[in-house]
């Protein structure tokens, strides 16, 4: 025996050992995929071992034995086709056709070799065509599957594709070698043998990768997912977090993933379909619900048998294997992570650990999210509280200011009258009391309106109102004034409104326009109808509103920062009430402004009764 022979023999022995290992390992499971795998690797081991052993012993096996070997080799691509079917879908007709053709071929070959030897070339040709055809199909199917898959599944499919291609080449070499003269014959046969062994290894890595390789293939996707994990709790929407978790889990396991979240209030698990539609699952229902109830991982390669009640649902969603792991954070049940594969062999038993790791990571992310939400809620509550306190203290402050003048001034007048009853009336002092008393009354009215607005009942009885007439009347009441107010009514605009409140709205807007404009600048009020809405605009040539203040001016106690409080009294409730009136009518109010040039306030009201339903 030469050294080359020895190396050859040892290498082949190692391969046979690997194939036998897979054969034994897969034999322990009874799923169709495992049976196919044991068949495939068993045949490979047997064929390689046989050629070695008979070569070593120097015996020529009987013809029937060679025929059995040929039958097994011819059956190999058929078993491969079955494996393709385990990993991806193969048309039923093709499967049945391959079976039928296999039987015919083997029978014809056996008959020819046993009864009328040697075997006729057409039969050999048919065998080669059968082998090549099936290999071509299997290779193409696996390549297609690998392109669709991701993560570890993609790597496995690539391994299998490579194995199929190498095996095809092996058959080609051996076939050509058979009809070639020496020394090409030996060269081609030897090359074919090496290709065959390489394809065996590729098949091994693809079909039954050892755990360490699985881990290594899962690592990049897992790392990507973990690297992104820290940002996930800050995503704006819980559904976004769920989608990211699903994407990460799917990538790391090479399957499909669904995250269901436990709703403590309604006691249901909620998951979201692709379109975002929520589906509710009772605990105990489906495999996800069972994993949640049992609080442990449930793995099945036959969901229809595991959960017969929902068999139809699994068939419809083509879930051939399901692995569900509860998502739990320190005893708090948060939900379930479910991994689905259309084909069972996508998962290995060892993936349960990975699923657990992913579920734990999901728990951390969801728990962080809950904490962030909680903190935000607390902050909002505090903010609401502070606003309430602000409202009370601001209201008290603003009421006390005119009250100070009224009380002190009245007492002062009283004292003077008591000391010297004949003294002339202090007209300035009296005017001060009247002015501040009126200011007090206006503030109280505004405060009451604001309080009614908070309760959403600022407006009352609705009646048909001619806006043009209403605006003209309001403006006429306010004339004469330092500002010329021009009213432009473009056609009759009649809507169903609370007349008193709409008057108040127009009054406020026109008064504001005058208040914040230099004397003698005109104010333009326009009433028209546009796009089925009543429109009113009030335009001034005043100080304008800074762009940064513009979004806030309709808020409570908001005053533009360029407003001099000493010249313009007010609580900052006027525009807030205006907005309330408009919105209770189902309309909109907004402002455009340019500093130093003026502002235009726009109101759009529905023509029908646009009462907001509370």
């Amino acid at each position: 025996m030469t050294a080359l022979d020895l190396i050859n023999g040892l290498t082949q022995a190692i391969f046979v050992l690997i194939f036998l290992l897979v054969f034994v390992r897969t034999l322990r499971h009874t799923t169709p995929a495992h049976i196919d795998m044991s068949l495939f690797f068993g045949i490979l081991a047997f064929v390689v071992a046989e050629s070695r052993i008979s070569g070593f012993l120097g015996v020529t096996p009987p013809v029937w034995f060679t025929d059995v070997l040929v039958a097994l080799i011819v059956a190999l691509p058929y078993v491969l086709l079955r494996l393709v079917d385990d990993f991806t879908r193969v048309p039923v007709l093709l499967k049945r056709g391959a079976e039928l053709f296999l039987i015919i071929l083997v029978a014809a070959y056996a008959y020819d070799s046993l009864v009328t030897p040697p075997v006729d070339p057409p039969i050999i040709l048919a065998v080669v065509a059968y082998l090549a055809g099936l290999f071509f199909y299997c290779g193409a199917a696996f390549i297609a599957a690998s392109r669709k898959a991701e993560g570890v599944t993609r790597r496995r499919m690539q391994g299998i594709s490579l194995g199929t291609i190498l095996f095809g080449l092996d058959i080609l070499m051996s076939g050509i070698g058979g009809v070639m003269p020496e020394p090409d014959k030996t060269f081609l046969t030897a090359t074919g043998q090496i290709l065959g062994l390489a394809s065996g290894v590729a098949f091994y890595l693809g079909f039954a990768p050892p755990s360490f390789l699985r881990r290594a293939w899962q690592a990049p996707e897992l790392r990507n997912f973990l690297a992104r994990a820290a940002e996930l709790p800050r995503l704006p929407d819980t559904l976004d977090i769920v989608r990211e978790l699903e994407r990460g889990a799917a990538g790391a396991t090479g399957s499909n993933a669904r995250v269901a979240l436990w709703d403590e209030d309604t006691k249901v698990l909620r998951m979201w379909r692709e379109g975002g539609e929520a589906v509710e699952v009772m605990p105990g229902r489906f495999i996800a619900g069972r994993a949640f109830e049992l609080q442990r991982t449930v793995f099945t390669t036959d969901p229809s048998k595991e959960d017969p009640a929902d068999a139809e649902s699994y068939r419809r969603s083509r879930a051939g294997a399901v692995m569900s792991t509860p998502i739990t954070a320190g005893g708090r049940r948060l939900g379930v992570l479910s991994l689905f594969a259309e084909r069972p062999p996508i998962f290995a038993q060892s993936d349960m650990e990975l699923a657990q790791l992913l579920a734990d990571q999901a728990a951390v992310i969801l728990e962080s999210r809950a904490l962030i939400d909680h903190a935000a809620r607390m902050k909002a509550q505090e903010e609401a509280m502070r606003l309430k306190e602000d409202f009370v203290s601001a209201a008290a402050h603003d009421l006390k200011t005119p009250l100070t003048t009224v009380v002190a001034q009245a007492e002062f007048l009283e004292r003077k009258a008591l000391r010297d009853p004949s003294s002339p009336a202090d007209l300035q002092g009296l005017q001060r009391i009247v002015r501040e008393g009126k200011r007090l009354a206006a503030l109280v009215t505004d405060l009451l309106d604001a309080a009614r607005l908070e309760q959403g009942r600022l407006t009352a009885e609705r009646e048909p109102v001619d806006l043009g007439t209403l605006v003209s009347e309001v403006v006429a009441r306010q004339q004469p004034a330092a500002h010329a107010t021009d009213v432009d009514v473009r056609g009759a605009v009649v809507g169903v409104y609370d007349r008193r409140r709409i008057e108040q709205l127009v009054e406020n807007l026109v008064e504001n326009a005058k208040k914040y404009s230099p004397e003698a600048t005109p104010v333009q009020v326009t009433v028209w109808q546009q796009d089925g809405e009543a429109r009113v605009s009030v335009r001034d040539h005043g100080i304008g509103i800074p762009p940064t203040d513009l979004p806030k001016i309709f808020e409570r106690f908001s005053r533009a920062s360029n407003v001099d409080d000493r010249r313009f009294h007010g609580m900052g409730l006027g525009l807030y009430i205006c907005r309330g009136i408009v919105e209770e009518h189902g309309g909109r109010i907004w402002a455009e402004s340019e500093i130093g040039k003026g502002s235009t306030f726009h109101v759009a009201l529905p023509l029908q009764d646009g009462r907001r339903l509370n």
Partner: protein
Amino acid sequence: MLEFWAGHGDGGTQSGDSNVTMGKGGERAHSRVLVVDDDSSILDTVTAILSGEGYLVMAAGGGKEALALVRSWHPTLVLLDMRMPVMDGWAVARALHEAGSRVPIIVMTAAESARRWADEIGAAGHLAKPFSLDELIQCVEKFSADERKN
């Protein structure tokens, strides 16, 4: 906004052309009271009342005017409103402190926290709005008397 007021003892009528007139309480005329408030009605009322009581009174409508008057007029007492636009009471008190002024301040505010704010700025006392005529007069009298003793 800077106005001069004169007390005539019998009334708080405005007299823009005469600077300071002595009231009936001759001693009080040595007390110069500066009233600072952004609300003109309060400013007018307090000035009229204190002038009527015989104090020399000046009014400032804001923090900056107040600081200018402290420098030029040397009041013996400042009645200070806290919430004012542009320069508020805290800023006035800080500026006075930094300038080394030791004029006593009475905080005058409509907020609940009058006492706390008075402590914050090291004020001599506080007047919570709305105050009565007697509260105002007694408070000013008390601190003016203290000032005279020193």
